[in-house]
């Protein structure tokens, strides 16, 4: 057990590269997952039956099978249909498809939590459906979906380790390869663990910052502070003149 070696691993280009890959997979899969989830959430609310059926089957498939299964399936079965994608793309594809199923539920509950009376009030003011969505529904829904979205962010970061099975050079695979070459499992895995904790901590800070900045009362406190700073400033200027 050597802390010096562990530190060496942490700052080595291979681990840095692996951490970067983990972050890249996580963020790409999250973004695609949100888009997928939004489409599904809208399909679930669709006035036509076909949309709701499609959404139901999708959720049933992707919540009913393990993510690991989905990753291996995408990587090994798609080439049989003549679709050969790089391992990284397969990883992001599988994780996004899976994430979409969970995001759909979160987004749907957020949109439903904004009461229909708020939309009606927007309509009565002469706003168009797009304006109502942007200015009234989304700002209120965003605050509601943020905490569960944060959980999804962190759980996605951890799920990204699963794609090591299809040889994507992410953090866990790098750690495993390093360890099996040197037999220094403790140091290599600890180095990876440090990166995971660092990344989840950054995500948590980001989430806390986002929640604060979306809280309307925080927003008011901020501009009241700048306003009062402005008043004292102009006050002192007046004294000078």
């Amino acid at each position: 057990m050597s802390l010096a070696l562990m530190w060496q691993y942490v700052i080595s280009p291979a681990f840095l590269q692996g951490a970067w890959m983990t972050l890249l997979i996580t963020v790409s899969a999250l973004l695609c997952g949100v888009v997928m989830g939004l489409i599904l959430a809208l399909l679930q609310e669709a006035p036509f039956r076909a949309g709701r059926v499609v959404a139901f089957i999708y959720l049933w498939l992707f919540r009913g099978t393990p993510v690991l299964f989905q990753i291996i399936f995408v990587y090994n079965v798609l080439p049989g249909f003549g679709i050969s994608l790089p391992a990284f793309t397969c990883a992001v594809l599988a994780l996004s498809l899976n994430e979409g199923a969970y995001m759909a539920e979160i987004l749907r509950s957020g949109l439903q939590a904004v009461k229909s009376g708020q939309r009606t009030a927007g309509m009565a003011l002469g706003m168009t459906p797009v304006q109502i969505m942007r200015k009234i529904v989304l700002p209120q829904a965003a605050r509601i979906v943020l905490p569960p979205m944060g959980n999804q962010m962190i759980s996605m970061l951890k799920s990204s380790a699963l794609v090591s099975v299809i040889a994507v050079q992410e953090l866990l695979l790098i750690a495993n390869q390093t360890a099996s070459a040197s037999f220094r499992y403790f140091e290599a895995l600890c180095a990876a663990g440090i990166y995971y904790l660092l990344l989840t901590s950054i995500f948590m800070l980001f989430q806390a910052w986002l929640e604060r900045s979306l809280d309307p009362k925080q927003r008011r406190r901020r501009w009241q502070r700048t306003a009062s700073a402005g008043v004292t400033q102009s006050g002192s200027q007046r004294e000078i003149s």
Partner: protein
Amino acid sequence: MSHSQKPLLEVIGIDKAFGRQPVLKNCSLTLRRGETLVLIGPSGSGKSTLLRCVNLLSPADSGDVFFGRQNISRGEVPPHQLRQRIGMVFQNYELFSHLTAAENIMLAPMTVLGLNRTEARKQAENLLAKVRLNDRGDHFPDELSGGQQQRVAIARALAMKPELMLYDEPTSALDPEMIREVLDVMAELSAEGMTSMVVTHEMGFARRAANQILFMEEGEILENASASDFFSGQVSERARRFLDQILH
């Protein structure tokens, strides 16, 4: 024909059903510019639906609705453009909970009419003063009492400079001690010549502000009287019984 003689709103023989349930049967009314019409009747009689036919939140199935010179029941006017000219106040206020009182008032003028922030803020402050809430601009809806919220909602509707105001039971959700402050603002607006259509049970308000009173039951307009006729007792037996009920 002079401009003022042409009615602002003319509803001619409209019908509406929800599924098989008829809610409006052959309803007609005329409202001239500057006048206030009060709609009364038991709950479920179609008062709110009639109100919502006017700004197309729930359009009539048949019949004609003229607003100014336009026939709005025939799809000639896009609904959102019509609603820019008609203000509406709801029973449950429906203020936007993520915005302050002032921002609630500023939202539609900024997004729909393209006012800049400074202009919209100035207008919001004038309107807040008008509804006697000068110092409440930076409060969020959940920091205001029901009566204050409803007055902000009135200011929000006025910010679009509407030609007609619709009030859908504006005081029904309020505690008794707050009803007065809202009715005072409404009566003041009526007195200043704001054309208004009000669904309410507040007969005191009707006596103070109404020019015309409609009594509805089961989707039909049973009584359409001038306020003076109505309050001098020239009403049908059915309307009198209803009045006795709500006046205890």
